[in-house]
């Protein structure tokens, strides 16, 4: 039986089969006999999650735009279908051709969060490939990975042939073009070592096998040294300098089943001016670049027409920082109103949330209001450089209540550097003040008589390429004590509190700042059956604990240790253009509770070169 027919029969017995068969509007099917380079774009999580990812949509369109390249989508199967695949010898396949991905030229993973690492291994295994890079031979695909977690790729260094650092729109095509040139014939692959050696010369490409890591007696890194002449000492991330002109897809794959973010998405800006000290995205996507109003309007219209979506969302790290936000919304709302399309604006910040802006959003839709003060007191907000004051929060809440909102969601982090119990109490107090504010507004002017506040607390995970990359994560005991204290400080039943699973945060902390030795733990955990770790129902920390024990690796060394400023960090040979000396400076200021101005107010010398297209870079 042909693979397709076999899959179709088996799909009758799995949940949401439309996820495994392709055929969606917007999916690109080519004649494989006319294609030179085939790329399997793997999102290491399920279809529902992966199909919501904007980066995949961009790179999928970009690659398929080249006539003789074919990029297909691949997702991790849910457990029910994975079992069916294994019982019936169905190898992991691409959703467009339904061909096994082990026959492709490239297998590429996007690394969006640390807890997807075991899925990477599992998908390689389901494809019928050895998970270790050194065990894969010349007749197997080149396995590549990119995305935000590639900024510290060391825990995956043993499994991936090469990492792509930074923005992918140019470098992906350069890589595929090199491969195409090196192919001896259409149905033959180039020799892998030679390909990697040439690829290492491309800016932004990191081939981990070309670097040796040595360690000091105390377990810290002594040196990371290239072992071939082609490998540069420092690998620099890629940046799109002319962001307004960068490729953007005019069509998305429109799924049949409902996915997490089922809508058209238009990117308005990249990078962030803010420099919140805990936020990795705020630094690794620098500099701040914008698209023109016309470009965004055109792309919105195009996408809506091509996909038929009834909802479009503007994507960025902070949409209200877009300089022409009011003009943009005016343009867009005219179009979306006329077409019965709803416009959503995630990522709005409190401090520049004007009355006018609120009015515009109101025309759009009235859902809950979400703020992320991150910390309960002004002192701690200064430490993390979250430049939001209590007055601003109150002012915005007041506007919102007058505008008819009666639900507020507040996000906080626990375990931030220098945090005390006073800061914890501050969270509860802030919640209480918001409730009082609501009831101080005249009944006729607010909506209803019942306010709901949800406070959600996450455990702080220190990340590479942030001023807190040196910081220890708070221990389990500290976090439990703080959670308990917060619970006791809450006096109102109008406030609902939720917090994250502690084990998850610990594992994230280890994987985020792990070195190559942590790779053994990932391998062992996967061998023990850990997969889909970001799903509560599958996450099995005791197995991870066993894996740490068996590999002789102490999670506390990675999670809870303070690193000195001169320690060589596992990602120090990667250059994300924001300098380490800036991070050191920012770290020192954090401990003095001193804030740093944002890029718009003036340059703080983070190290991003002037010629990268940054709006505020000189």
């Amino acid at each position, binding site marked *: 039986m042909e693979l397709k027919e076999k899959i179709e029969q088996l799909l*009758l017995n799995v949940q949401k089969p*439309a996820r495994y068969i*392709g055929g969606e509007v917007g999916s690109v099917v080519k004649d494989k006999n006319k294609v030179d380079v085939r790329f399997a774009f793997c999102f290491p999580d399920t279809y529902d999650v992966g199909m919501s990812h904007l980066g995949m949509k961009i790179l999928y369109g970009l690659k398929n735009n080249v006539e003789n390249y074919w990029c297909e989508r691949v997702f991790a199967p849910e457990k029910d279908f994975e079992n069916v695949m294994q019982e019936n010898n169905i190898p992991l396949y691409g959703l467009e051709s339904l061909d096994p991905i082990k026959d492709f030229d490239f297998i590429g993973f996007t690394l969006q969060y640390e807890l997807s690492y075991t899925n990477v291994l599992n998908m390689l295994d389901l494809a019928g490939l050895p998970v270790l890079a050194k065990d894969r031979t010349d007749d197997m695909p080149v396995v590549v990975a990119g995305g935000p977690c590639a900024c510290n790729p060391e825990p995956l260094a043993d499994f991936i042939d090469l990492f792509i650092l930074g923005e992918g729109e140019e470098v992906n095509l350069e890589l595929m073009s090199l491969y195409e040139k090196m192919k001896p014939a259409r149905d033959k692959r180039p020799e892998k070592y030679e390909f990697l050696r040439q690829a290492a010369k491309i800016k932004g490409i990191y081939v981990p096998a070309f670097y040796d890591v040595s360690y000091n007696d105390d377990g810290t890194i002594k040196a990371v040294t290239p072992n071939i002449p082609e490998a540069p000492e420092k690998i620099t991330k890629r940046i799109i300098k002319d962001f307004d002109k960068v490729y953007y897809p005019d069509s998305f794959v*429109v799924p049949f089943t409902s996915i997490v973010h089922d809508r058209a998405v238009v990117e308005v800006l990249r990078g962030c001016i803010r420099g919140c000290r805990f936020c990795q995205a705020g630094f690794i996507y620098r500099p701040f670049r914008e698209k023109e109003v016309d470009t965004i309007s055109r792309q919105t219209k195009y996408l809506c027409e091509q996909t038929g*979506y009834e909802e479009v969302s503007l994507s960025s790290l902070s949409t209200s920082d877009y300089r022409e936000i009011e003009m943009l919304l005016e343009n867009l709302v005219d179009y979306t109103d006329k077409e019965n399309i709803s416009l959503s604006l995630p990522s709005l910040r409190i401090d520049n949330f004007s009355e006018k802006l609120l009015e515009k959003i109101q025309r759009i839709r009235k859902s809950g209001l979400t703020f992320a003060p991150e910390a309960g007191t002004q002192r701690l907000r200064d430490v993390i450089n979250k430049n939001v004051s209590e007055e601003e929060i109150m002012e915005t809440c007041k506007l919102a209540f007058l505008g*008819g909102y009666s639900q507020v969601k507040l996000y906080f982090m626990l375990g931030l550097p220098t945090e005390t119990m006073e800061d914890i109490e501050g969270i509860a107090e802030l919640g209480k003040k918001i409730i009082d504010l609501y009831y101080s507004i005249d009944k006729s002017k607010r909506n209803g008589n019942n306010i709901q506040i949800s406070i959600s607390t996450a455990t702080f995970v220190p990340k590479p390429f942030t001023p807190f990359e040196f910081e220890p994560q708070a221990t389990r005991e500290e976090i439990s004590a703080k959670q308990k204290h917060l619970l006791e400080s809450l006096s109102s039943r109008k406030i609902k509190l939720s917090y994250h699973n502690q084990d998850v945060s610990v594992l994230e902390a280890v994987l985020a700042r792990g070195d190559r030795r942590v790779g053994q733990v990932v391998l062992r955990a996967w061998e023990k059956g850990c997969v889909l770790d970001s799903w509560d129902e599958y996450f099995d920390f005791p197995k991870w604990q066993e894996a740490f024990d068996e590999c002789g690796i102490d999670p506390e060394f990675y999670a809870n240790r303070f690193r000195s400023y001169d320690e060589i960090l596992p990602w120090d040979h990667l250059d994300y253009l924001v300098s380490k000396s800036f991070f050191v400076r920012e770290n020192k200021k954090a401990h003095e509770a001193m804030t740093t101005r944002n890029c718009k107010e003036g340059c703080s010398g983070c190290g991003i070169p002037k010629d990268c297209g940054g709006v505020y870079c000189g």
Partner: protein
Amino acid sequence: MADVPKNQGLNLTRYMYRMTFSKKGRAKFISHLDLMRAMQRTFKRAGLPIWYTQGFNPHPYIMFPLALSLGVESEIEPMDVALLEKLENEEIKSRLNMVMPEGIRIETVGEPVCDHLDIYRSDYEIIIKTDRPPEETLKFFSEFVSADEIIIKKRLKPKKNRRETHREIDVREYVKLLGIEASNEGVKINIRLATSAGNDFNLNYTPLLDAFSEKYNIDINYISAKRTKILCRNGENFI
């Protein structure tokens, strides 16, 4: 603050269309709920102005009188749509088919003639492969559906905190074998089953095949099914 529905008083004039579409190949895995969303987006892509319901939460007026089970193909699924404009049937059909998902095609467009409650029977073409030779399967299946009684297990909605239960019923009057042939590809069965868009008895082929499999102790290891016709009480095609 008073909320005003977005399109209050906008459009009360609407033109009703009844379309039929085929759903084949990979499209058979689109569930009923997902199909609604897929069709809404198809109309948007086609630039066909759908009439929106005039409430606080306006939604496009598209309606499927019958549900098709996941995994089953069809040649004639009915769909009712209200448009804001009167357009040529052929134009509607071609504009939709240009932007339709793979496997779905609009087959006919016209004005609604029958009432949904007139729907009475559906014809299916079912291919099964079993652990027995095709001729033997054919013989037993013909026997099974020609008997004076055809007993199947009908699943009953489980009561709160109870286990799922089944009731045995005789579906003789709801089943009519139209043709059956055996080949190396398996056994092809053409069969007419009771179908209803209302509260009348509705018979799916799955419990029928299950009952057959159990009665004759035959393992069915492959099923593909396609709805080929929808008939009204008066014996005419549903249009």
